[in-house]
C-alpha cells in the first residue's frame, strides 16, 4: 500500500514533536511493508490557494499555480493511507498543512453530491483510502482537542475516508508512541 505522510509542523524548534511523529509513522509504515512518501510541508514552496477554481472549470484536475504542491497532489491521488501531522492550532491545523489541504481541490470534482445526508464534492480519483491525523500540543487543552477531533471527522467525511483515526500527543510524548501509531496504521490498512 502507498502511505503518504504530511508533516505540517514548522521547521523551527516548535516543529520538533511533529518531526518525531512523522519519523515514527514512516518507520512503522515501512516495517509493515508499505511504500512511504513523506513531505515536510513547511520546507516546500507551496503558495496558498487563490480560490480561482481553474482546477475545476478551466483545466480540470490541474492547479493554476505551478509549485511543489504538484508532487503533493500526485502523492495524495495515489495514496491508500494518508497520515497528517500538525501542531493543534486553535483546534485546527497549522498553516503549512492547511495550505496543502486547501490546494487539494484539483483532486475532487466541482459537482455537488449528497453523502451521509450532506452536500460534498465527489472524488476525482476513486480509491478506498484511510486517514490518520496526529496533533501535537504543549499542554492539555480539552477545548482545542475536541475541536480537532471534530474537524478530523468532518475532513474524513469530505474525503470519503473508509477508516479514520485521530490522536493528540503532548510535546515530547511522541517518542514513546510507536505502538499506538502502529496500531492506527494497522487498522487503517486493514479497512481498505
Amino acid at each position, binding site marked *: 500500500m502507498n502511505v503518504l505522510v504530511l508533516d505540517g509542523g514548522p521547521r523551527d524548534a516548535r516543529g520538533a514533536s511533529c518531526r518525531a511523529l512523522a519519523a515514527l509513522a514512516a518507520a512503522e509504515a515501512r516495517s509493515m511493508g508499505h511504500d512511504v512518501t513523506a513531505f515536510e510541508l513547511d520546507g516546500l514552496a507551496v503558495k*496558498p*490557494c*487563490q*480560490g480561482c477554481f481553474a482546477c*475545476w*472549470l*478551466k*483545466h*480540470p*484536475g*490541474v492547479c493554476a499555480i505551478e509549485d511543489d504542491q504538484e508532487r503533493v*497532489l*500526485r502523492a495524495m*491521488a*495515489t495514496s491508500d493511507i494518508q497520515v497528517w501531522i500538525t501542531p493543534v*492550532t*486553535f*483546534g*485546527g*491545523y*497549522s*498553516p*503549512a498543512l*492547511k*495550505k496543502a*489541504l*486547501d490546494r*487539494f*481541490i484539483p*483532486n475532487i*470534482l*466541482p*459537482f*455537488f453530491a449528497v453523502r451521509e445526508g*450532506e*452536500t*460534498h464534492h465527489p472524488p*476525482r*480519483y476513486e480509491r478506498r483510502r484511510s486517514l490518520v491525523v496526529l496533533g501535537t500540543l504543549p499542554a492539555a487543552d480539552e*477545548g*482545542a482537542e475536541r*475541536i480537532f477531533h*471534530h*474537524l478530523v471527522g*468532518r*475532513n474524513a467525511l*469530505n474525503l470519503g475516508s473508509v477508516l479514520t483515526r485521530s490522536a493528540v500527543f503532548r510535546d515530547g510524548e511522541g517518542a514513546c508512541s510507536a505502538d499506538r501509531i502502529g496500531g492506527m496504521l494497522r487498522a487503517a490498512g486493514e479497512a481498505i
Partner: protein
Amino acid sequence: MKVLLLTGSPKGGRGVSFALGSALTSRLAAGGAAVEVTAVAAVLRSSEERHRLYRLADEADLVVVSFPLYVDQLPAPLVQTLELLADRRKGAMGMTPWPGPLVQKLVAVVQCGFPETAQCRPAVDIMRQFAKEAGFPWAGALALGMGGAVGGRSLAKPGGMLRNVVKALDIAAASLLEGGDVTPEAAALMAKPLMPRWLYHAAANWGFRRQLRRHGAGKKAFDRPCE
C-alpha cells in the same frame, strides 16, 4: 466605536466573504463607527501592512473577521495571520507583547458554498478558540450556507432571496452598536437556507457544466491527470 474588518478570503475585496463582512461593518459605520479594513493577503505580503494590522487591532473596539470555508475550516493564510496576532499577544517568537489591556471584541462572519450552514461549525469553533487563546472577548458568529448564491446581489435592502441575511445583518449590527454580541436571533436568521437544497444543487451543477463548456473543458471535467 472603532471597528477593524479583516478579510480572510484570497479574493480580497472581490468575494462573497468581503461583501458579507463589509455589509456588517457598513451598518456599524452608519451607526457612527469608524471602520478600517485590511486583508490577510496584504498582511502576509507586506510588513508595513502587518504592522498596520497590529496597530488597528490594538485601537479597535471590535474586530470582524470575514472569510470563506476552505476544506471544513479557515483558509491557510487566515490561520497564519491569526497565529501572528496570537503570538504578538503572548509576546512569543521574539515579538513585542500586545500593549493591552485587551478589550477588542471578536466577531466571525463565515460563509460556505455548501447548502448546509452547519458545515461552518468547525470554522466557528476555531475562531472562538482563537479568541480564547489570544484573549479577545468572543462576540459571536454569523455563518451562512449557499454562499455561492449571494454573488453580486445587494445586501443593503431587505427583500428577495437574501431577506433573512439582510435582517440578520441589521439585528447583529444594532446589537454590536449597543455593546452587545451577535444575538442568537441574528445567527439563526443568517443560517436559514436561501432556497431549497435540491434547487441550489441543480443550479450549481448546471452552472459548473456551463462554465466548463465556456472554457472549452466540457469533455475534460472528469480527467485524472495524476494517474
